[in-house]
C-alpha cells in the first residue's frame, strides 16, 4: 500500500476531528495510507506570518525538516497548513540564505524537496475519477453541493498546479463522480474571513453571509469544503448571518472526505455528521442518503 507522510494540522485533533478521521479512513479505503508526521507542530497559521515572517518560515520549517527525514510526498488536509507549508517550502528552496537561516533556527535541514499535496489531489491522482465512479455504492443523488476551497488553497499564484486558481474544478469533478449534482458558482475561492472570526465577528459575518447567499442563489443545498478552518467559520458564523440578514435556512457544510465515505458506503459518517454545528442529517434523510 502506498504510504504518504501526513501532516494533520491542529484542528483535526479537536474541532475538526471528523475531518481527520474521515481523511484517514477514506484514504485507506481507496488504497493508500497516510502516516502522520512524528511530533509535528503547528504551522503558525495566519498569526505567524502576519506578525513575524521568520517565524512563519521556521514553524513550518521544523515540519518540513521532519518530512525531509521521512522522504516521499507530504499530504495535507487543511488549506491554511497547506498554504503555509508550501509557501515556506518555496521560499526555503528558492533562497539558500533563507534556508540556512531557517536551518539554524530549527536545528535541522528544512530543505524538503518532495511534493506537498492536498488530499484532494492525492485522491484524483491515486484513484482517478473514473475508478472512483466505479467504487461508489451510494450515489449522492439529491445532493446539490457547491464546492468551496477558500482563499488559501489557491494562493499565492502558482500554488495550485493542475487546476484553475480562480475556478478550481477538482472538487466539483470528484463530487460529480460520486453522483452529486454540483452547482456552478463564483465564490469557490472567496475568503471567509476565518482569521478574524473571533476578533471582528461583524466583518466576518458579512463575508460568510455573502457566501451563503451566493450558494442559495446557485440553488445549492449544501457546501462542501476541504479545510477545517473554512468549515468551522462557515458553520459558526452562518447562524448569525441568518438572523442578521434574514436568510431562509442554514445550509449544511461537509468535508469532502465525509461525503466520500458516505458514497463509498463506509462506516462512520453518521457519527461525524452528528458533530456538525449545522446538522446535515435532516438533508441527508430527506434525500435518502442516511
Amino acid at each position, binding site marked *: 500500500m502506498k504510504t504518504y507522510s501526513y501532516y494533520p494540522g491542529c484542528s483535526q485533533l479537536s474541532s475538526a476531528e471528523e475531518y481527520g478521521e474521515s481523511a484517514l479512513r477514506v484514504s485507506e479505503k481507496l488504497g493508500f495510507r497516510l502516516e502522520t508526521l512524528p511530533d509535528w507542530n503547528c504551522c503558525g497559521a495566519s498569526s505567524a506570518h502576519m506578525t513575524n515572517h521568520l517565524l512563519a518560515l521556521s514553524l513550518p520549517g521544523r515540519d518540513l525538516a521532519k518530512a525531509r527525514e521521512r522522504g516521499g510526498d507530504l499530504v495535507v488536509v487543511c488549506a491554511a497548513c497547506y498554504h503555509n507549508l508550501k509557501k515556506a517550502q518555496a521560499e526555503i528552496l528558492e533562497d539558500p540564505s533563507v534556508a540556512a537561516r531557517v536551518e539554524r533556527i530549527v536545528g535541522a535541514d528544512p530543505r524538503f524537496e518532495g511534493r506537498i499535496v492536498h488530499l484532494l489531489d492525492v485522491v484524483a491522482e491515486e484513484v482517478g475519477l473514473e475508478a472512483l465512479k466505479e467504487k461508489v455504492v451510494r450515489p449522492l443523488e439529491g445532493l446539490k453541493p457547491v464546492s468551496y476551497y477558500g482563499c488559501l488553497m489557491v494562493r499565492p*499564484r502558482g500554488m495550485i498546479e493542475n487546476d484553475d486558481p*480562480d*475556478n478550481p474544478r477538482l472538487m466539483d469533478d470528484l463530487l460529480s463522480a460520486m453522483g452529486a449534482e454540483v452547482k456552478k*458558482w*463564483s465564490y469557490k475561492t472567496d475568503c471567509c474571513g476565518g482569521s478574524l472570526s473571533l476578533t471582528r465577528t461583524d466583518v466576518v459575518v458579512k463575508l460568510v453571509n455573502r457566501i451563503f447567499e*451566493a450558494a442559495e442563489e*446557485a*440553488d445549492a443545498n449544501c457546501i462542501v469544503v476541504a479545510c477545517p478552518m473554512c468549515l468551522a467559520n462557515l458553520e459558526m458564523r452562518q447562524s448569525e448571518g441568518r438572523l442578521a440578514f434574514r436568510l431562509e435556512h442554514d445550509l449544511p457544510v461537509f468535508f469532502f472526505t465525509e461525503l466520500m465515505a458516505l458514497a463509498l458506503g463506509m462506516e462512520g459518517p453518521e457519527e461525524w455528521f452528528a458533530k456538525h454545528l449545522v446538522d446535515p442529517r435532516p438533508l441527508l434523510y430527506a434525500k435518502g442518503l442516511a
Partner: protein
Amino acid sequence: MAEEKKTTAKGKARAKRVEEKDKVKAGKPESTGGAPVGAVMVVGGGVGGIQASLELANLGYKVYLVDSSPSIGGVMGMLDKTFPTNECSMCILSPKMVEVASNINIEVITLADVLSVEGEPGDMRVRLRIRPRYVDIDKCTGCGDCTAKCPVKIPDPYNAGLDMTRCIRVPFPQAVPGAAVIEGEVCRYINKGKCGNCVKVCQAGAIDFEQKEKEEIYSVGMVIASPGYKPFDASRKTEYGYGVYDNVVTSLEFERILGANGPTQGHVVRPSDGREVKKLAFVQCVGSRDVTVGNGYCSSVCCMYATKQALIAKEHLSSIEPTIFFIDMRAYGKDFEKYYVNAEAKFGVRYVRGLVSGIRERQRTKNLLLRYADEDGCTREEEFDLVVLSIGLEAPCGLKEGLGVEVNGYGFAEADSFLPVLSSKPGVLVCGAAQEPKDIPDTVTQATAAAGMASQALHGARNTLLTRREHPPERDVSGEEPRVGAIICRCGSNIGGFVDVPAVVEYARGLPGVVFAEERLYACSQDAQEWIRQVVDEHKLNRLVVASCTPRTHQPLFRETLQSAGVNKYLFEMANIREHCSWVHMKEPENATRKAQYLVKMAVEKARRLEPLAEGESEVIPRGLVIGGGVAGMNAALNLARSGFQVYLVEKEGELGGLARNIRFNRDGADVQEYLRGLVEAVEREELITVFKGHRVVDVSGFVGQFKTLVRDGEGRETLLEHGAVIVATGGGQYQPAEYRYGEDGHVLTQWELEERIAEKDGSLKEAKRVVMIQCVGSREEERPYCSKVCCTEAVKNALALKELSPSTEVFVLYRDIRTYGFREDLYREAREAGVVFVRFDDDARPEVREVAGALQVRVPDANLGNETVVLNADLVVLSVGVTANPDNAELAPMLKVPRNAEGFFLEAHMKLRPVDFATDGVFVCGLAHAPKSIEESVAQAAAAAARAESVLCKDRIVTEGVVAVVDAERCSGCRICVELCPFEAITYDADRRVAVVNPSLCKGCGTCTAACTAGASRLQGFRSDQIFEQIEAAASAWWD
C-alpha cells in the same frame, strides 16, 4: 488500382509544374551578374502586409505575399469598425484586398510558413512550407455549395469561435483568395476515408485530396516581415472567468458580435441567452501591462478600441450603458483625445478609473458582478449583462525561428531605434504589430516605409520582374441604347440596417434604362467584383450604377471592375446611400429609404448620359521636393535620393535639424545629436540632394508629375524648381508656457531645458534634492484638445536620467494619464523601480506652483487619495510642454491645395489607409507637420512619404484623369474668358482657328471655365451641364412622383 494510377499521373503533373515555377522563382537572371533580384517576399498578409505588397508592386517589384492562414486580411478583416473615425473596417480593407487579388504582380501564397531565410540583401532565398488546402484555388468559385453539405462542424475562426462553420468553407465572404479550404485535421474523408460529400457537390471539381504539404524555395531581393500579432489568451487571467462564464467575451469576439456580418448580425446580445445587452463593461489591460503573464508592455490599441466598441454598441442600441474600467486612458494618437472626450461627454460612455479585480457570476441571471471604486473611493458592486475583456497583443510566431530576426524579451522583432522597420537581419525588414503593438495607421505607415526601404536596396532591379496587365479590349458602346445595371449595396447593416434595400432595388428596376438591379451584402468584396463582371457580360450592360458608399474611396475599385469587364470605366456612377444617407438618417428609416431611392434615380439619370472618356498621359519630372529640413524632411530627402532620385530640400532656417536639435538622447538612450550630425552630413554629402537653406516656398503650381515651385531666400532671390512630387515636412513647435510660474522663476524649466542640463551633466542638478515634473502643459486643453504624445515618455526618460545622474534626487511626476504606449511602458516601470514617484491629479484639480519663502512649493491634489493635497517643496519644477502646429502651415496649405485640421496640423487623405497622402496627387506629408509624434515615428513616416513620392517619380508618365474640360470648337465664340480664368493655365487660344483649346494634361477638371463660358462651349467631361441638369430634374421629379 485505377485510382492509384490517377494519383501518380496527377502527382507527376504537379511535380513538373513546381519545377517550372521554380525556374521562374529562382529567377535571378544570371546575365545581370550581381544585380539584385527585383522581387520581394512579404510575410504576413494583414493590413500591413497588404499595404507593403501594393506599394511594392506599384514601385515596380514582383511580390510574393505569404500568409500562414487560408486568406489574407489579418485581424483588420475581423474588425467591425475602426477608431477614431468609426469607419467600417471591411469596407476600407476589402478594396485593398481586391486590389491585391487583381494585381498580377502580387502572388498570394496562403497556408504557408517560412522555414528559413538566407542570403544577402538583394539576393535572398526563402524556404517555405506550404500546407495543403485540398481545394484548387483556380477552380473554386467560392460558391459555398460544399459547406452546405459538409457534415463536420467546427468553430468558425473568422467569428472568433462564436459560432460554427464547417470543415470546408470559404474563410469569409471577402476572403482572398476567395476559395474554400478544408481543415485537414477534422475532415472525415482525410481521416477516415469516408464522406467526400464536397467532392460530390462541387460542380467546379475543385476538391483535391491529393494535395500534399510541400516545401519551396523562393529567390527574392528583400523580405518584409509583417506577421502581426497573436491576441492574448484571456483564459490565462483566470480571475476574469473567460471560458467559465458565458457572458465574458474577448474584445475580438465582441468585435464580431458588433459586426453586421458576424454571428449575431450586429445585434448586441449575450451569448448565454441571446438577450439584448443593456449594461456593458469593458476591462482594460487584460494581458498587457502585466508582468505576471510576462507582458510588461502596453498593447497601445485597446484603450481606443474599447472606446470604439462602446460607441458602436451604443450606436447599435442606444439603450446600452457602457462602462470602461481602465488604469490610464491611452488616447495619444491623432484625434484620439477628442474621440475619448466626446465618447464620455457626448455619447455617455462611462469611464471608471481602476481595474476590477475579478468577475463573479450570478447563477440565475448569468449577469456578472464587478466590484470597483466609485468617485468617492467607495467600493461598489454592480451587475453587468456582458463583460468584454480588452485583450492585449502578443508577439506572433515565426519571427525568430523562421525569419531569423532577433526578438526582444517579449518576442517582438528587435528594431533600429531611429528607423524601426530595420530588423537585426540585413535583408529582412519588419513592419506592423510584429515590431511593436500598434494601430492600423501606424501599421500602414510602417508598411509603406518598409516598402520604400526595400526599394532603396533593389531599385537597380526595378521593373525587371514585372508583368503588365492587359485589360480586355473596350467594347464599343456608342450607338447602343443605355443599358444600366444598378447594384444596391447593403454594406452589412451599415446601409441595410436603416434603408429598406429591397425597396430600393425594386424602385431601381422601374427606372428608365435600368435593365438589371440587384442587392449585395458587400458590393466591394472580391467575389462581388467577379459577379459584377458576370452580370455586365450577361446583361450586356453598358452603364453601371452602384449605390453604396462614397465615391471618394470606392469609385476607383468599381471603375477598375467595369474596365476589366470590357466597358469604359467612365460609364460608371455612384449613389452615396451610406455616408450621405443611411448613416445620417439612422432614426428615420422611411425617409432614408426614400432618399436612397432618389439618389439612385439621380445616379441612373446621369449614368444614362455618360459617355466613354479617354485618359491622357503626362510626363513625370523624376525629382522630388521636400519642404522642411528637420529629422523628417532630411530622412525623406535621403530616402528618395538613395532610391536614385534627385531631391530639392528647402529649409527656412540657416541650419538643418529642426526641433530635434533640442533633444539630446532618445528613450533608448541613443544620442540624438550624434544621429542628427550623421544625418545632416549624409544629406549634405548626398549628390542627388540640393539643399536650399534659408529659403521659403512662395508659390507652387503645376500638378502631380510636373510641379513648379518658386523658392525665395532672405534677400529676395528666387529660384524656380521643377519636380514631380512634394513632401511636406514643415514640422511643428513647442508650446510656450505661461502657467506654473514659467518665466517668472528660474527654477521652473521645460523638459528640453532640463534635458540640456542633464546632457551637460550640469552640477546644479546633483544639488537639486527634489524635482517635480508636471505633465500635459499646454496639451489636452480647450485650445489644444489633443495629446502631444511625446511628453509622457520624455518625462519618464528624463526622470530616469536624473535618477541615474544622482540617485538621491527625488523625482515626482504629476500626471493625468501616463501614456507610455507600447514598449515605452517598460521605461515607465523602470522609472518607478528607480524610485520616481508618480502622482495623479484630476483634470479639474490641477497642481499649483507657489513661491513660499523664496522657495518653490508645488501643491497637488492626489487623485488616488481622494484629492488629498500633497505638498512638495521643489528645487526644480519641470514642465512637460506640448507640441504645437507650425503656423506656416496656414500659408502653405492653399499653395499646395491641401487641408489642415482645426488645430493647424495637415489633414491626410485618409486616416487609416492613406496616412501620408493628401487628396491632392503627388503631395505627401510626414513628421510633426502631420501630428505630434516621436523621432522614430517621424523617421518611419518620412520613409513612408518618400516611398509614396517614389511611386510617382518612378513612373515615366502619369495617366491623367478623363475628367477634363473640352471646348466645342463649333460653339466657341473665341471670347477668351476661359483662358483668363483657368487657374492651371490649361487653356490656350488658337488664334488661327479662333477657338480656345484645352491641354488635357494640365486641365485639373475644376470646371471653372465651363461655368463661365458664355457660349456653353466649354464642357467638363463627366460633369457636363446636360448630365447635371438630368440630375437636378431627377432630384425634383423623384419628389414629385
